[in-house]
């Protein structure tokens, strides 16, 4: 028994020897004991209790209370959706853990902890980095979510981001006469470029009925090679085979944030992102324009019947989605130490945005939370590279994120569970009827 315990706790020991200062001196075995034993006891007690009192009056009352909660949540589709997203995240983490167990069981425990506690590994510095990495993901997530609410699937966030990034860096390198407005103009330029790039599939969809998925996915590749060409022609650094970095006046300012998050890459991009989330929330839920977009998205025929200009709405929706993806490009590349490289695959952030939009249920606030979650896991993966090879870490992160995006699947599971409980509820009511 003791040996088995040693084996289970082993990874924590290995972890204890590692150099991660935050965890170095924590008595893992004790902590695990404190946490696990009460939990196990509580669980066992609950199971026993449920068996024992299930048939008594109190048990029935308890059951009824639980059913009421279920019933209440069953009547609110939003509740089920949120619960399913959370459950999906839990599944994703579990699945990631299984992958780690398969690859290297001895480091699985510590590796898993490293990943989920990623943002706190280096105190405020890694918290700041987490936010920094989350910003472009949240923005592309918003881009996809926004289009989705209008019934459009924007697979092209990657390309929109990349043309935005190029324009931002181009302005950042060439237009140094702008002084303090340099980064503002560069960001706005990125948004315009992304908007133009997003408008192409929007216009084709609205006026020629070409499917936006096909167009936007193709435009992703067009954007890579176009940007490669443009970088080589205008802002190339041939010695390092990459684009020149923007002037420091074009860097997104850090303001006071560098005092709160010392040595972190964080900048005010997070405030810009928060503003975008807020704006999108208001736009979608409070305005006439949002009402029209949602009508077109939910039922194009009814929107037309009601006299809405569905072509205009489709074009506008894709244009706005493109602009926000373009902004993500500015946020990614208008920072010191990041350069546009000569690529031959689309930028991954654009596709992660799709998963984030799904996980966030296409709601602006949901996307914000899901994006921060991604940032945290991503940071955790960075630190886990001391335990697992980089490729494995990427696989694990991918597994967690994409499994998490299966919220539709968990949604069905929850619905099924509630159905079963409702059936039981009816039986319960009847048995009470017999007594009364």
């Amino acid at each position, binding site marked *: 028994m003791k040996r088995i315990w040693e084996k289970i706790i082993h990874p924590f020991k290995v972890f204890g020897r590692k150099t991660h200062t935050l965890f170095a001196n924590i008595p893992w075995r004790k902590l695990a004991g404190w946490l696990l034993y009460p939990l196990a006891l509580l669980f066992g007690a609950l199971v026993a209790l449920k068996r024992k009192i299930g048939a008594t009056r109190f048990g029935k009352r308890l059951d009824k209370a639980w059913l009421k909660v279920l019933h209440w949540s069953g009547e609110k589709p939003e509740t089920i959706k949120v619960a399913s997203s959370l459950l999906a995240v839990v599944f994703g983490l579990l699945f990631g853990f299984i992958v780690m167990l398969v690859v290297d069981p001895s480091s699985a425990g510590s590796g898993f902890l490293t990943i989920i506690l990623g943002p706190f590994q280096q105190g405020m510095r890694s918290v700041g980095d987490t936010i920094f990495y989350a910003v472009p993901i949240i923005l592309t997530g918003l881009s996809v979510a926004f289009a989705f609410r209008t019934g459009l699937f924007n697979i092209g966030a990657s390309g929109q981001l990349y043309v935005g990034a190029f324009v931002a860096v181009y302005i950042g390198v060439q237009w140094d006469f702008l002084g303090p407005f340099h980064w503002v103009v560069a960001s706005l330029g990125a948004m315009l470029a992304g908007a133009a790039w997003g408008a192409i599939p929007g216009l084709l969809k609205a006026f020629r009925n070409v499917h936006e998925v096909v167009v936007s996915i193709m435009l992703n590749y067009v954007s890579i090679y176009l940007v490669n060409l443009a970088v080589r022609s205008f802002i190339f650094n041939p010695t390092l085979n990459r684009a020149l970095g923007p002037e420091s006046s074009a860097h997104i300012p850090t303001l006071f944030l560098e005092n709160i998050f010392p040595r972190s890459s964080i900048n005010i991009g997070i405030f810009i992102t928060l503003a975008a989330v807020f704006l999108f929330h208001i736009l979608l839920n*409070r305005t006439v324009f949002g009402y029209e977009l949602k009508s077109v998205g939910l039922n194009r025929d009814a929107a*037309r*019947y009601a006299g809405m200009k569905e072509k205009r709405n489709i074009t506008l929706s894709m244009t706005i989605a493109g602009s926000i993806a373009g902004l993500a490009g500015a946020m990614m590349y208008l920072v010191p130490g990041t350069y546009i490289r000569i690529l031959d695959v689309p930028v991954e952030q654009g596709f992660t945005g799709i998963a984030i939009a799904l996980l966030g249920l296409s709601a602006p606030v949901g996307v914000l939370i899901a994006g921060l979650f991604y940032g945290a896991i991503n940071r955790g993966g960075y630190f886990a590279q001391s335990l697992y090879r980089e490729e494995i870490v990427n696989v694990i992160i991918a597994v967690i994120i994409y499994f998490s995006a299966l919220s539709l699947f968990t949604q069905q599971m929850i619905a099924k569970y509630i159905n079963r409980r409702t059936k039981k509820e*009816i039986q319960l009511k009847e048995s009470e009827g017999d007594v009364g």
Partner: protein
Amino acid sequence: MEHAIEMLNITKEFPGIKANDDITLKVRKGEIHALLGENGAGKTTLMSVLFGLYQADGGEIRVNGQKVQIRNPNDANDLGIGMVHQHFKLVNRFTVAENIVLGEEDTKRGFMRYDAAIKRIENLSKQYNLNVDPHARVQDISVGHQQRVEILKILYRDANILIFDEPTAALTPQEIDELMDILQNLANEGKSIVFITHKLEEIRRVADRVTVLRDGKRVDTVEVSTTTNNDLAKMMVGRDVVFDIDKEPSKPKDEVLQVEDLSVYSPIRKKNVVKNMNFNVRGGEILCVAGIEGNGQTELVYGLTGLNPVSAGKIWVNGEDVTDLDIRERSLRGVSHVPEDRQRHGLVLDFPLSYNMVLQNYFQSPFQQKGFLQEHNILEHTNRLIDTYDIRTSSGAATLARSMSGGNQQKAILGREIDRGNSLLIAVQPTRGLDVGAIESIHKQIIAARDAGKAVLIVSYDLNEVFMLSDRILVMYEGQNAGVFDPQETTESELGLYMSGSKRSEDA
């Protein structure tokens, strides 16, 4: 008398509802037995129990006097019970014969053998006067013929007991007539038929006896010949139903809608499906467009409301030329439209009722201010409509339109369109698929709108409805005006001649 089926004290429950509560149904051999009830009365559930789709929680079933267990549709087939479902279960790309033998294929060394089957299908088709070509593809034949394929499918399996679940819902008046003859033929040949419906006229035409269900309980079983329609309706709804709505004679005022030489091109059928139509509708009168479905009525309404562009002609609303205006502009100039497909055009099903009630005027004050929606005004407006038009919902203005019943969805659309204060109301098939109670309420609202001085244009494929509502009747045949009639001076059979193209009015 001997019974083909006896369902004794059948009880079937679903979570939260007793769909069948102690129902007894006895069907005699060779009779047509109608099962009448409103939507949700338990008709389909009862028949699903008989067909083995559901298991009863209580009660027993006897077939030809023998007590039987029907666990699944195969058991039902073996007992000679067949069912024609409301939604046909056919493979569109297969031929009629392929569909009929599906599941009972005759094979030789793994190869299909159709000759004998086709012979048999042809014989059956002749015997019951079904007139079905076994080689035709299902996708190419009309809905009425598809239904006959379903009937043949059952007969091919030697069924003696045939269940029809609302068989007339998708048929044109002519197809309904033909179906009624077929039912009569089948009964004459000794088949027993159970016929689920909520239409009293059909029962009167073919059924021998009728069992009425209400709220999952059996109300009564009566002989059709000794019962009046009013009695049946009363049994079905549980209260008196007014069939002939007391309608004051119309007091027509100024012309609200004028249509001149209107033609509408259909991009699907690649031709003008409305040709040179001329008519007008005055305020305070109801003009019904009668005709068999598919004679250009849908496109006529699309042209009038702006959903399709017109290819020639002029439309005036209140004296203003609206021919080149878009949907929104026409709607603002007085055109209200209750669409034919209420779920496709009329509602955004995933919006709450409140958002649906401002679908055309969300951008007007007081529903918006400076580009922001004014939720409280929208709610207030919705609650008023809910009260005025008796729209029943589970949670008021916040109810998702998707979760409402068809009747209440239609009441909501009608309420919205009438309440906008427009001078012209265009309604297509306003009561299709609804039960008697909802139909009554909707007809009353339409007549009230007329009495309030609106011009009303109704397109209906149901002649009963046409006669009940109209002040004038326009018959449409092949996209053209085949004649205009006064409902007091014409009959259904006269209209039928014009609807089928056998006659045309000279002056039209």
